[in-house]
């Protein structure tokens, strides 16, 4: 069979194509047909080569040429055994032969093989003098060398096609692959080819456009182009800080393109024009989350448009919009029945427009209301907001007979005109209250907070900063004994100058779920720290650890407290390092080995104290956490993992 295939080859060199065929002829008959065309290619090239060799060898004139010393061929002449057809191509010629030898071996690309082999005759001639004397030797060497070298290529030769994976896979899979890239990378990748450009700017990859990582770097034109191509696919648009969107036409193009927005953040785009903003609101009727913090373009008319065009709105943040006032808020409250989350800090006009308060009272939809810094809010307005315009009071208990509010989070920081009378009204009417912030309401006293604490069993966050009239008795009698004390997680009493140990000790004894306590600028002393350490110790032994690795579960902020000394800090630090010493010294023959017992007692207290001690404390905490992790057998847990885990947990805790 081998001979039949090479019947056209020159008789002079029966061995060379024969050597190919002989060694290539590994597969049975069915494959020979496939091999034929390739073999023919190869043998044609071979033919030409060997014919030229013939010519050279026979011509007298060329002898001189051949016998000229050739540095390239000389080193290779010794390797006689390698002079098979394989070695013919791999013999050295300075003219870039590696490609031909590789093509011979790889057979990956049929198209290149013949060309390279065809190239060899012209190039090989200088090396032919090495071949001549060896031609005779070849017969002997073939069976030894060639099968070894050529057997692999035959296997591959059958599959010799160009396999372009990317063209074969369906579009959906390509998009899935590209969905793992960040926006910056996507733009870079789009430059590969036209097909890639189409793919990379396919709308499905741009449903969430968050410019927080690159708002400074992206030019306005690119931003507009991307959003235009993504167009109706964009659902979440976060353009916080994108000052570049100023030019009228560009912003208009953007607005025309994006009409399916679900959640938009335009915080900080101070150059956004009012007509463009109005157009955006009119075209996006399905908006659910809207954040327009600090935009000078927002005014009462904008709020009217929001109330008319965006009926599905659930959360709205219009803090710091100086051009609007409380009337706009009234439009929104009345027009958006699903509104649950309203952030309206620094909005003027609450006192002059009592209708706003009535509207908020009547609709009773809000679960989160942030009215910080609304410094013109008066007692009357706030009472109306919570209890209604003419509240009735129960004759016996003197409690208001209003239906309960759905409020879960209320922030009234810095609304300085509010006093006890209005804050008291929160009591008994807000059973679901979870977060309450009354920082900087300097007129408040104990009597405002007592009823609230008694009636809000779900309270977890309590911010009472800068309320200098609060006394210890509030904490002893009310915070510690309230129904919410086991759930309380966050307590801030910074700058409450009358609070001292007497008040805080009962708090630490009863509020066992505390995660962060801010006690700076108070009169607490080392006793409180000891109590805190005790609390963490007992709770870490009694409940399972909140995370698989040691983590800071209590954050104490105690700078600016003149009565806290290094002794107190030492208490905390020694509590942090207790698990280390306990594990080493088994008490009463009870050794804490792995398992349940070993997993407890891994809670660490984080401390923010007087600045000179802070570095020592930080280093101590870091080392304790590292050793604790190692004790648990988490040897391979790098410090980065632990830190990251801590950060994640802290972020979760702080919400």
């Amino acid at each position, binding site marked *: 069979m081998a001979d039949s295939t090479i019947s056209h080859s020159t008789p002079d060199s029966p061995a060379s194509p024969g050597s190919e065929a002989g060694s290539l002829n590994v597969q049975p008959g069915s494959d020979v047909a496939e091999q034929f065309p390739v073999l023919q290619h190869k043998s044609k090239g071979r033919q030409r080569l060997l014919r030229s060799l013939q010519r050279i060898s026979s011509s007298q004139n060329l002898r001189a040429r051949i016998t000229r010393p050739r540095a390239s061929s000389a080193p290779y002449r010794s390797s006689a055994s390698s002079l098979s057809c394989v070695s013919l191509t791999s013999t050295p010629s300075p003219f870039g032969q590696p490609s031909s030898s590789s093509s011979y071996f790889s057979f990956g690309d049929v198209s290149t093989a013949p060309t390279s082999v065809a190239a060899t005759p012209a190039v090989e001639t200088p090396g032919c003098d090495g071949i001549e004397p060896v031609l005779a030797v070849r017969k002997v060497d073939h069976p030894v060398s060639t099968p070894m070298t050529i057997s692999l290529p035959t296997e591959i030769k059958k599959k010799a096609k160009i396999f372009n994976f990317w063209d074969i896979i369906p579009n959906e899979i390509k998009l899935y692959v590209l969905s793992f890239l960040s926006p910056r990378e996507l733009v870079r990748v789009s430059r590969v080819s036209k097909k890639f450009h189409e793919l990379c700017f396919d709308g499905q990859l741009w449903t969430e456009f968050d410019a927080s990582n690159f708002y400074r770097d992206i030019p306005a034109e690119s931003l507009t182009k991307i959003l235009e191509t993504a167009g109706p696919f964009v659902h979440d648009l976060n353009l916080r800080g994108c*000052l570049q969107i100023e030019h009228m036409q560009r912003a208009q193009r953007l607005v025309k393109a994006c009409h399916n927005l679900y959640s938009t953040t335009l915080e900080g785009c101070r150059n956004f024009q009012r007509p463009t903003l109005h157009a955006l609101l009119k075209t996006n009727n399905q908006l659910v989350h809207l954040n327009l913090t600090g935009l000078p373009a927002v005014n009462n008319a904008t709020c009217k448009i929001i109330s008319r065009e965006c009926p599905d709105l659930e959360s709205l943040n219009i*803090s710091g919009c100086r051009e609007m006032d409380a009337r706009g808020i009234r439009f929104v409250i009345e027009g958006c029945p699903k509104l649950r989350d309203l952030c309206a800090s*620094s909005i003027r006009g609450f006192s002059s427009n009592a209708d706003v308060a009535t509207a908020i009272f009547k609709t009773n939809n809000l679960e989160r209301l942030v009215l*910080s810094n609304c410094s013109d809010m008066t007692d009357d307005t706030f009472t109306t907001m919570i209890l209604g315009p003419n509240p009735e009071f129960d004759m016996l208990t003197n409690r208001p007979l209003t239906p309960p509010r759905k409020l879960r989070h209320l922030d009234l920081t*810095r609304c300085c005109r509010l006093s006890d009378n209005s804050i008291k009204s929160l009591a008994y009417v807000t059973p679901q209250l979870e977060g309450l912030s009354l920082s900087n309401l300097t007129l408040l006293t104990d009597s405002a907070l007592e009823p609230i604490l008694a009636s809000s069993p779900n309270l977890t966050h309590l911010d009472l900063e800068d309320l200098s009239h609060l006394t210890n008795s509030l904490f002893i009698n009310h915070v510690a004994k309230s129904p919410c004390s086991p759930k309380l997680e966050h307590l801030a009493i*910074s700058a409450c100058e009358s609070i001292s140990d007497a008040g805080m000790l009962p708090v630490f004894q009863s509020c066992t779920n505390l995660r962060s306590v801010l006690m700076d600028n108070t009169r607490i002393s080392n006793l409180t720290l000891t109590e805190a350490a005790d609390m963490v110790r007992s709770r870490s032994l009694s409940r399972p650890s909140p995370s698989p690795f040691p983590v800071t579960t209590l954050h104490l902020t105690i*700078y600016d407290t003149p009565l806290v000394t290094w002794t107190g800090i030492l208490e905390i630090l020694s509590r942090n390092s207790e698990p280390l010493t306990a594990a080493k010294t088994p008490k009463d023959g009870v050794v804490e080995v792995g398992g349940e017992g070993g997993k407890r007692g891994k809670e660490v207290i984080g401390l923010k104290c007087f600045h000179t001690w802070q570095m020592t404390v930080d280093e101590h905490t870091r080392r304790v956490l590292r050793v604790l992790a190692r004790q648990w057998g988490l040897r391979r847990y790098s410090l980065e993992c632990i830190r990251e885990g801590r950060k994640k947990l802290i972020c979760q805790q702080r919400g």
Partner: protein
Amino acid sequence: MGLTYNTYLNSDKIYGCKNCKAHLANAHDIISRNFRGQHGKAYLFNTVVNVETGDPSERNMTTGRHVVRDIQCRQCKDVVGWKYDRAYESSEKYKEGKFILEAELLCNVT
């Protein structure tokens, strides 16, 4: 010069300029609150963002002589506090390079 972009901080409690709500500092970055400025209480911070510093001037404060620079919000150019350049007393050296922001000129930005 180009557009002056604002830096945005990531935290649950951020102090910002009262006028323009630009992020100024992280509340967890406070070193001490025991300071008084022209408008009342003031807080000492490690780092603040989005501010421009003015020219240094020597002032006599309750704690001694210091060289300070006024800080302005980058967006609205309102003075929000000052930065300590140099403290002449050794007990006040810890303030050098830190920033004071006046509580009255700040607001909470969540």
